[in-house]
């Protein structure tokens, strides 16, 4: 009797600002600051980079980090810091586009399946199961080998590969919302299917999906880096973080900083997006986060 947890309902639940609730843990605050720093640095690369990313200086190959070259230099003496800044444009650009594609496709997929029910639901979700049963990297390798590795194809391929997991979450959200009285009221009012899904339901499922998008973005960064590391990234001389990591790894005995910095940045980017995604989920959708 005594240990029973009692939910004490605050009489007037005041909604604190979303940003404030989001940043109420130290990790989330750090992640948010890092996200702003990384995105700003990448976006403002031409202003920040003191040396062009493709300026060769063979006499300074494999230079350790210094004031002139913060992250050191690569095998051709190019400034690694500049290359990271510009590489981020590829990495984050591909990841961003892939996230948009994964969300659009996944939400439409899950919504249609959840709302339709019956055989259509069955077919669509079995397809999700099939796609998700194969490791994403394996699928990615095949598709990139088949269609080539440009920013455009990489974004589409990664987006496609991440959409089934999103579809599953979107479908669950639809099914939960369809149970609710306001949806029943809308059906009883004769609201057509499309309007029900995207006019009534989507705003309510929005929080779940926003949190999901952040996690998808983390996955996209990871997959892009993995593909690049396996040599299927965008073609030289352009280089994403994953490409840099791979090249650094190839030269690991010449320079430790060459492999360390790309690895660190990729790790940080994924951690930041995952942390914010989890936190968003906890704040926007407390039921699921548990």
């Amino acid at each position, binding site marked *: 009797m005594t240990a029973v947890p009692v939910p004490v309902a605050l009489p007037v639940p005041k909604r604190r600002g979303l940003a404030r609730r989001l940043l109420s843990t130290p990790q989330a605050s750090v992640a948010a600051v890092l996200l702003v720093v990384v995105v700003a640095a990448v976006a403002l690369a031409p202003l920040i980079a003191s040396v062009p990313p493709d300026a060769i200086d063979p006499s300074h190959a494999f230079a350790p980090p210094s004031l002139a070259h913060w992250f050191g230099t690569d095998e051709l003496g190019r400034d690694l810091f500049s290359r990271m800044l510009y590489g981020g444009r590829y990495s984050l650009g591909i990841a961003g586009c892939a996230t948009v594609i994964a969300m659009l496709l996944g939400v439409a997929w899950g919504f249609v399946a959840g709302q339709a029910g019956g055989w259509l639901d069955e077919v669509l979700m079995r397809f999700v199961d099939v796609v998700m049963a194969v490791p994403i990297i394996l699928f990615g390798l095949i598709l990139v080998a088949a269609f080539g590795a440009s920013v455009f194809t990489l974004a589409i391929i990664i987006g496609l590969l991440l959409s089934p997991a999103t579809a599953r979450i979107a479908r669950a959200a639809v099914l939960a919302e369809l149970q609710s*009285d*306001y949806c*029943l*009221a809308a059906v*009883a*009012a*004769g609201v057509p299917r499309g309007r029900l899904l995207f006019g*009534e339901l989507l*705003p*309510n499922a929005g929080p779940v999906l926003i949190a999901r998008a952040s996690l998808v973005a983390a996955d996209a960064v990871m997959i892009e880096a993995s593909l690049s590391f396996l040599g299927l990234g965008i073609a030289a001389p352009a280089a994403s973080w994953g490409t840099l990591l791979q090249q650094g790894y190839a030269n690991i005995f010449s320079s430790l900083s060459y492999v360390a910095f790309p690895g660190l940045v990729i790790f940080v980017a994924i951690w930041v997006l995952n942390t914010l995604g989890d936190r968003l989920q906890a704040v926007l959708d407390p039921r699921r986060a548990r």
Partner: protein
Amino acid sequence: MAESLVVAEHLVRHFPDPSGKDVVRAVDDVSFEIRPGETFGLVGESGSGKSTVSRLLLGLDQPTRGLVRFDGIEISGMSQRRLRPLRRQMQMVFQDPHASLNRRKTVAQIIGLPLAVHSGLSRSERDRRVRQLLDLVGLRPEFASRYPHEMSGGQCQRVGIARAIALEPRLVILDEAVSAVDVSVQAQILNLLKDLQRQLGLTYVFVSHDLALVRYMSDRIGVLYHGQLVELADRHELFAEPRHEYTRSLLAAVPVADPGRRATRV
């Protein structure tokens, strides 16, 4: 006597049992008619099938067997698309005032939704109609821009009622419509519902577990027990001479705000 507005014939609705082996007979051979302009009460406890019946009446759920006729048209088995033209004639008010309103929409959008779907009204005409409806249910016009979480349960329920009557339907199903609001507000809503019925000539189905409320609202009353309609009678008759054992036990269980009567009760 006028034609029946709604006819339910041998309605049966089975759901698969959670274990998957058996079926749950939520509604088991229920038949009744509802006359235009009356309030038909459905009383029963949880699991009696009263909510399933109200969904079947509106074509929100399909019966396993049997049929529902609305104004002579058989609506059982109709797709939502084919039902759409009929939707404006039948509406529903739900139990949970907050859950039945879309929490991301303003009151104006919520009440305006059926208008947007069915009437060819322009946006400004719709807004005017929303204001009219708010006035009808006793809410000030500034409520139009509020969100559900900014209102009390009673106020939300008034919005739910305004939405239900927006298209001037003939039939409104009140599914436990006042069960979740406070006692002092409950009376306001009941009075409002009776007023609206008089003004708009509505036909009500009043679904509740509360015998006293059903008695106050209804002309004829059906008692549901384990999915079956065990008694169907005029209000007067039902309370003067309850025939079925279950009706009697239900009547005896209603707590009465009179301590003088408890010695005989407990």
